[in-house]
C-alpha cells in the first residue's frame, strides 16, 4: 500500500510524554503496514528542557530528521514550543498546539526584575505563527485531560485531535489500539477517553480550517 508521505514535527517540554506519543503513532503504523520513522531526543534535554520528535510517515523517506520547511504539521504539547520550531513548518502547514504555557524559569527570572515585562501569551504565539500559516488551532489539552480523568493524558488528547486530519495517513482504529497497547493497563480507559475528547475538540475548531475525516 503506497501511503502518502506525512511529516509531523512534535515538540513539548521534557516530561510531557512526547516520546510515548511518537511510539504510539509508530506502533500504530507498524500494525497497519505503514512505514514510519522518527528522529527522537533522549538524554540531557529531557530535564524540563525543550524537546522534539521528528515523526515521518512514507515508504521512501530515509532521513529521521524533517527538512527545514518540510513538516506538514507542527504538533506542540506546549504553546511556546510551537513557536520555537516554526522553521520546520511548511508555509500553510497545520499548527496544532496545546494552549498551555509553561514559562521557562529563565524567563520568569527576568520577569520578576521588571513589572513592565509581560510573559509571552498564546495569542502572541498565534499571531507570530500566523505569518507562516493560517491553519492554527490551539486546544486546551490540560483542561481536556483533566476532564478525561488524568492531567498526564495531554499527549493523547493532542493525538486524538491530530487523528482527525484527512492528510494524516494512520487509521483511527490503529491509533486507538496502539494507545490501548502502549499505556499502563489501568490507564487505558482514561487515555481512550482523552483521545475521543481530543477529537471532539478538533471538530470544534481545527476542522473548520483544514479538511478532516469525520
Amino acid at each position, binding site marked *: 500500500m503506497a501511503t502518502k508521505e506525512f511529516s509531523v514535527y512534535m515538540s513539548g*517540554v521534557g516530561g510531557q510524554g512526547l516520546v510515548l506519543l*511518537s*511510539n504510539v503513532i*509508530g*506502533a500504530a*503504523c*507498524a500494525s497497519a503496514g505503514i*512505514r*514510519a*520513522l*522518527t*528522529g*527522537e*531526543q*533522549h*538524554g*540531557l*534535554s*529531557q*530535564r*524540563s*528542557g*525543550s524537546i522534539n520528535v521528528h515523526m515521518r510517515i512514507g515508504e*521512501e*523517506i*530515509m*532521513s*529521521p*530528521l*524533517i*527538512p*527545514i*520547511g*518540510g513538516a506538514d504539521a507542527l504538533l506542540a504539547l506546549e504553546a*511556546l*514550543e510551537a*513557536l*520555537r520550531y*516554526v*522553521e520546520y513548518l511548511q508555509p500553510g502547514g497545520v499548527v496544532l498546539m496545546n494552549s498551555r504555557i*509553561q*514559562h*521557562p*524559569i*529563565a*524567563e*520568569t*527570572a*527576568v*520577569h*520578576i526584575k521588571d513589572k513592565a515585562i509581560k*510573559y*509571552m501569551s498564546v495569542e502572541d504565539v498565534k499571531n*507570530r*505563527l500566523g*505569518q*507562516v500559516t493560517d491553519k492554527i488551532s490551539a486546544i486546551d489539552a*490540560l483542561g481536556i485531560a483533566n476532564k478525561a480523568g488524568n*492531567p498526564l493524558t495531554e499527549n493523547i488528547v493532542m493525538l486524538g485531535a491530530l487523528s482527525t486530519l484527512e492528510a494524516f495517513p494512520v487509521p483511527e482504529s490503529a491509533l486507538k489500539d496502539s494507545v490501548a497497547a*502502549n499505556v499502563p493497563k489501568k490507564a487505558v480507559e482514561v487515555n481512550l477517553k482523552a483521545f475521543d475528547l481530543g477529537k471532539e475538540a478538533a471538530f470544534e475548531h481545527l476542522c473548520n480550517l483544514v479538511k478532516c475525516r469525520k
Partner: protein
Amino acid sequence: MGAADVVREGPGKAFMLCNEAIVRGALEADVKIVSAYPGSPTTEILDTFSDVAPKFDYKMEIAANEKVALETCAGASMAGLRSITSMKSVGLNVASDSFVSLSYTGIKGGMVLVVADDPQAHSSQNEQDGRPFGPNAYIPMIEPSNPTEAKKMVKFAFGLSERYGVPVLMRTTTRVNHQSGIVELERLDRKPFAKVKWDHPPGRFVTVAESARNFKHALLERTTKIEQEFSDSEFNVVKDTGSDLGIITSGAGYNYTVDAIKILGINPSVLKLGTTFPLPKDPIAGFLRKLKTVVIVEELSPYLELHCTAIAKDANPGVKIFGKWTGHFSEALEYNPNIVVDGIAKVLGVKPPVDYNAIMAKAKELKTGLHDRWPTFCPGCPHRATLHAVRQALKGTKHILSTDIGCYSMSFLPPIEYGDSLLSMGACLGVAAGMQYAVEEKVIAMIGDSTFYHAGLPGLVNAIHHGDDFTLIILDNEVTAMTGQQPHPGSDISAGDRPAKRLILENVIRGMGLEDITIVDPYDIKNAIGPMKEAFSRKGPNVIISRRACALYADRNKRKRGERIETNKVERSVCKKPYTCIRTFYCPALSVRDDDRTAEISKELCDRCDVCAKLCPFGSIKRGEGE
C-alpha cells in the same frame, strides 16, 4: 515499542528504537553476557537489556564504568561466551586501555561493542569521532544507518567476531541510536545458559613484550583477511545509475543523502559503506573509476574523505573529490537534510530548491523575545537545594568550583550559572588538586555518587595521599540520575532489579583514610548550610555528602507504593512578592501570576520538596493544590 516487542517471539514487525533493535539483534544471536555503564545516546541499550533481563538467562551487570564493562565482556568471551557492551563515545576513552590490548589477545566467543558518537554534543562534553578507534586498535568496525540495519549488523558482528577471534566495534551516532522505525523480528532461538570449559593453553591471553609482538603480526594478517571479506559485504551497497557524479557516505549521512537527492532531483551513483574498518579498498576503487566528481557525505572528521582520496590516487587520479577539505561540508555539528542539500548544490553549482537561510532568518525574527528553555533541575531535585545551600555557605568566601559529569553539570546554565570547569567523568578531583596549588581562592570539587564510583575514586585517593586542600561535595542521590535513574554501586539493586550490595559512601571514604566527612540532607535546607560552612572553613581534603534520592526516582517509587505526590501552593494574601523563591531557587514549577504578580506554583509540576517554603521569608508557601 519497548520491552514487549523486544521479548516477542518472531517473525513479526515492530516499531522500535534503534537501541531496542540492537538488543533484539543480540538476543536473536543468543548473547549470554551483558555489561554496560549508561551514557546517552546508548542508554536505552542498557535499559532494555535490564528491563527484559528477568525473561532471559543472560548474565548482566550495570558496571561501575565502561572499562570494567568491556573487561567483563572480554573475560566471558575469552572463555567462549557471546557478550555485548555499549557505551557513548567518551566511554570508549575510559575503556580504550583494555580495548586496544584486547585486539592483540583476541577472544573466542563473539564480542560486540556498540559505541555511539554524539555529533552536536546533544548530551556530551565533546563531539569526538570514534572511528579512528577502529584503525588504531585494528578492530573491525561496522556502521548502520537505521534500526533494521543495526539489528542485522549486530547478528552479523557476533559471527564475524567468532570467525576471526576479535571483538567487533559497531559505531553509531545519536541520530541512528535515537531513530525509531519498523523492524522485522526473527525467531528468538536461545539455548539455556551453560558455563564453558576453559580450553586455552597458559598465556593464551597474556600480551606483553614478546607475546605482544607476536600478536601484532597475527592481527595484521587478520585485518587483511577481514578486508577481503568486507569487499563482498552486503553492508556496502552500490547504487550505480551510470552518472559521472557519485556520492560516498555511511551511517547517518546516508539517510540525509537519500532525502537530499530527492529534494535536488538529481540521480548520482551512491556508495553506502557499512564496513568502515578495514575499509574495502577494491569496491571503493571500482566505484571511483566510473566517476568524474564525487561528494563525500560524513559527519565529524574527514575519515572517509582521507581514505577515498588516498584510494583515488591510483584508482582515478582525475576524479574531483568534494567534502570537508574543499569547504563544502563542516567538521562541526551534526548534519541534516538541509546541510546535505546545500553542500551538494554548492558542488553542482545549482541553487537549492528551498532557501533554508531565508526560512531560518524569518523564524529568527518570529522568535524574538522567546526565551530559551534550557534543561534544568526537575521540580523536587535535591541538587537545586544543595547548590543553594553551597552558595549560602560560601557567601563572602572567594571560591572556584570544579564540577563533573551528571545532572549537576547543568548548574552552569542560566539562570543558575554556577561552576568554573568541567572535563570528563571524575575529572573534578584531579582538576581541583591542580587548582589548589595555583590559586588563592577556596577550591570546591563537586561530583555525583555514580560518577564518583565510575572514575572519582583514584582522584580522591590521590588527594588524600597528598593532603590536597579542597572540599569535595558528593551529591548522593542513590542512582545514575542523568541517564534515567539506573542503579550504581551505591544502589541496593542492579540490572533487572536484582538485589545488589550497596556500598556506603562514608564507609568507602573512611576506608581510604579520610575522617573529615560532613553529611547533610539538602531538603533540610536551613540545617544543611551551617555544617557546610564549617566544613568549607576547614583545611582539605574533606568531604561533604549531600544525601537525598533523585526526585524522579523517589516519585516513581512513591507511585509504585501507591503514595500520592503532594504539592505546595502560594497563599496569595500572604505573598509580599520578594520572589525569594524564584530568584534564589529557580524551580521550573514556579512562575508569576499575570494579574497580581504573586508567585504561583504549578500543581502539575510541584513535587513538594518543600524547600521553597522553607526559603520564603513570609511563610506564604503552604501544603496544598494551587489553582
